[in-house]
């Protein structure tokens, strides 16, 4: 089941006007930011479907940028995100794409800083809920029906074992896992789908393990 919490239905608390095109967009931007780990210098955003057709009126552009600046859905600063991005030196361009994607609210974000690059495809499925379907050109096989976390870490031995240990300690079963890295010895990414929800405190515990850089959930 895609929606697993009553707070997916009654919530999120957000700055309007659209839960899919504003709040969902802000969340996609924020996940991309957390996966990248820092403020990018340059972001190119491709919008598809309904996102592309209504983005100006729904503040999708503003919200995506707000998320990239690490604002949550209810952060009033979202309204001024484009100005703030300019002040902070983040260059953003938007492109409307005519291609029909599987879901009407899809955005592809390409984040760059120096020679660091991250490409994320996010989908806003409704009510503020999002899914990440592609990462650096690879289709993720996350079902969207179960909780999932992304762990960004330094590529070194023992990283996967340490994270798996923490999850096992809390009796959380891993249903699916994918690991990838941009370059040997640099940063790597674990995509982990679990049977049980990974609470904020467990995320914090994982984040504090040696070599971990960030833990990102989609909520």
């Amino acid at each position: 089941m895609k929606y697993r919490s009553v707070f997916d239905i009654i919530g999120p608390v957000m700055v309007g006007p659209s839960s899919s095109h504003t709040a969902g967009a802000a969340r996609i931007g924020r996940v991309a930011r957390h996966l990248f780990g820092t403020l990018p210098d340059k972001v190119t955003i491709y919008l598809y479907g309904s996102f592309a057709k209504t983005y100006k009126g729904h503040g999708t552009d503003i919200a995506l940028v707000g998320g990239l600046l690490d604002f949550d859905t209810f952060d009033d600063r979202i309204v001024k995100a484009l100005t703030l991005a300019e002040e902070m030196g983040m260059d953003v361009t938007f492109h409307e794409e005519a291609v029909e994607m599987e879901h009407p609210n899809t955005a592809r974000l390409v984040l760059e800083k120096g020679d660091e690059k991250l490409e994320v495809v996010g989908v806003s499925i409704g009510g503020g809920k999002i899914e990440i379907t592609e990462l650096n050109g690879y289709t993720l096989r996350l079902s969207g029906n179960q909780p999932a976390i992304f762990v960004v870490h330094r590529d070194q031995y023992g990283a996967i074992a340490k994270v798996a240990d923490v999850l096992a300690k809390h009796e959380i079963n891993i249903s699916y896992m994918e690991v990838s890295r941009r370059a040997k010895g640099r940063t790597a990414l674990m995509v982990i789908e679990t049977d049980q929800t990974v609470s904020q405190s467990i995320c914090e515990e994982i984040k504090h393990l040696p070599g971990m850089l960030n833990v990102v959930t989609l909520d």
Partner: protein
Amino acid sequence: MFRTVAELLQIAETEKIPISEVMIRMEIEESGRSREDIMEQMGRNLEVMEKAVERGINENIRSRSGLTGGDAKLIQKYMDSGKTLSGDTLLDAVSKAVSTNEVNAAMGKICATPTAGSAGVVPGVLFGLKPKLNPSREAMIRFLFTAGAFGFVVANNASISGAAGGCQAEVGSATGMAAAAAVEMAGGTPEQSAHAMAIALKNMLGLICDPVAGLVEVPCVMRNAMGAAQAIVAADIALAGVKSVIPCDEVIEAMHVVGRRMPTIYKETAEGGLAATPTGRRLAEKIFGSQTSSGR
């Protein structure tokens, strides 16, 4: 974990608990969080809704486009005249739904129920019924859990997104959710809640998402107004003992199929319906300039 309304009712009837309690217990089990924590979060959602209702009625809200704002105040003022046709409870709910959506359109803070475009219906009904039913704060929080339970079923079996299912998926769902929650708050049974939801939702089948200029303003604000009114009427009909001939889960499935088959021009692309009227197009042109611009 319930997937359908039938399962929801089954749990309510077996455990002899209201629907709000079924939802609370499921949330506790799924998230591993405490009851206090969960109730507190819903209490915060309630506060956000209260604030939005209050802002639209007391402040001079206007959206950036200028298309909406000020109607909640107008309706409240009309109610003060004492000469309304539909009665104060109904119009109070309507004005509070309008208020919430006006704040939403002005990029103010709201609580999505289940979406921002349909955020007015549930609080509109809740705060509209408040003077009449005098619920405790806990009862008001439970109202949201009941609404959430029905929305939960729709989200997992059909859709709550205008882009995927049209307005029937957003305001339609919200109207059904509010009707079901109103029944519980008024002392009705879980089964009656389900009938209220079915009766409300079936009357919104086929409702398209045709936002003028692609904004969440026209006709969204007025759709929430009508949703609030319909929800209260549907609740009354169910409380009278009327049963929906088509069971709730089947109405939800029908909404799902209708939504899938709906042409994309009617699914939040601002290409059909009211968005495509001469006035609609003129407004889009005025607000956004050339319609074939790309990028910023």
